[in-house]
């Protein structure tokens, strides 16, 4: 069932075996049920592109895609993510290694400074466009507000999302 196996209590407390599907690859890991998806990605799978900024769902730095939807990995138990397709910033680039258009747009618009919130911003931005919530600058601002940027690159982030949304709409037309 969905790649979860409870292993009962050992000396180290309850452990479980979980299969996480991250960026198209299956990973069998043994972990504490308390492990959040964020910590599983960072501490167990070495995927440190997903960042920890608050652990309370108040900053957006840990945003990943779960079955194509943007969600916060700090508020999700790793066990609850088993069976879902998880995409992180490391899985966004094309098969040839070329950056995703949103990654390129963030570079082009200088939509980052310290870069720490950036993976979360980009995961959120990709979803924002896919959801159809990038129709105007105000809509982008609202739907990107779940990702705090303390350097305050916001106007440049809006420009990057606007550009990608524009080209996506042009393709659709």
């Amino acid at each position, binding site marked *: 069932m969905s790649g*979860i196996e409870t292993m009962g209590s050992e000396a180290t407390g309850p452990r479980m075996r979980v299969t996480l599907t991250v960026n198209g690859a299956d990973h069998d890991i043994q972990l504490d049920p*308390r492990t959040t998806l964020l910590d599983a990605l960072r501490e167990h799978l070495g995927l440190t592109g997903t960042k920890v900024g608050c652990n309370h769902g108040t900053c957006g730095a840990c945003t990943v895609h779960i079955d194509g939807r*943007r969600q916060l990995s700090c508020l999700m138990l790793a066990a609850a993510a088993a069976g879902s397709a998880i995409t992180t910033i490391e899985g966004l680039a094309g098969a040839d290694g070329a950056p995703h258009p949103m990654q390129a747009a963030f570079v082009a618009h200088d939509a980052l400074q310290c870069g720490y919130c950036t993976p979360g911003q980009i995961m959120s931005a990709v979803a924002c466009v896919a959801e159809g919530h990038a129709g105007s600058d105000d809509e982008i601002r609202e739907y990107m507000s779940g990702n705090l940027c303390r350097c305050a690159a916001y106007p440049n982030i809006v420009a990057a999302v606007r550009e990608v949304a524009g080209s996506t709409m042009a393709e659709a037309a």
Partner: protein
Amino acid sequence: MRPFLYSRATSLEQAMSEAAQSHAAIMAGGTTLVDLMRGDLTGAEHVIDIGHLPGLAKVELDGPVLRFGALARMADVAELPFLKQNYPALVESLQLAASQQIRNAATLGGNLLQRTRCVYFRDGVSDCNKRVPGSGCTALDGEDREMALFGASDRCVATYPGDWGTALAAFDTSIEISSAAGTKTVKFADFHVAYGDDPARESILQPGEIVTAILVQATPAGRHSTYVKVRDRQSYAYAVTSAAVALELDGDRVTAARVSLGGVASKPWRAPAAEAALVGQVLNQAVALEAGRAAFADAKALRHNGFKIDLGARTVARAAMVAKGKH
């Protein structure tokens, strides 16, 4: 976090039976529960994940009762065209809550059960009757700008933080609750318990009971409804004050009204005095403000939240005028 066992429910029946055991907690989207567990604000030793159960996310809008499956995700419901057209207050309350990432995970049922944002409850160290019954209420002589004007007592002055719940209070809503004993529905007004009575108890939900649906009586007032949320930050913030208003109109005259308040009470708070002040009146700014003032006539302010009596009245007034303008 305290250690816990995780299990993923394969059926509602299994979940209900496991949830009846002591120290069990139901998890749906997880956005509330994981955060609470991190703060050691639940005693959960067994987490039962119902987030993957089939069938509980269905939303049915075409009958005399709108039926929202408890596992429907906030973000999905916020996009439903019928709802946008006919019940803007419900959609707006979802759109203005949290962030899209959280709305993608959080469920309609779980949202109702989110717990207060009172900093003294959350900080894990202050005296708090909600966290440690009998320890006292720090907010009484603490930072109280965010605290409640209604439904509070000298035991607890925390506010209910939800938007969706506040909007639901402006409709004839009931909650479907399932347990091994069967399924029952309770009126939404009876679902939450005002914190002032027993701070540790926030809803009537008992161990083994699971919210399975939210039922809203269809009403023409839905079309003339809105949810207004006033925040310090433009987005991704809890309400300082909020109001949901749903109106039935004959021309400019109000024939029926429902008004509820958020950010100012220990539970989703209906304001019958405001409703009475609206019904029968030709709605204009002055009438709307009068209704707002009526809503807060019985408010009990602390040291730093008295401004919410005025702001809340204005919020109701804005909501009433916006609701009138909806088509």
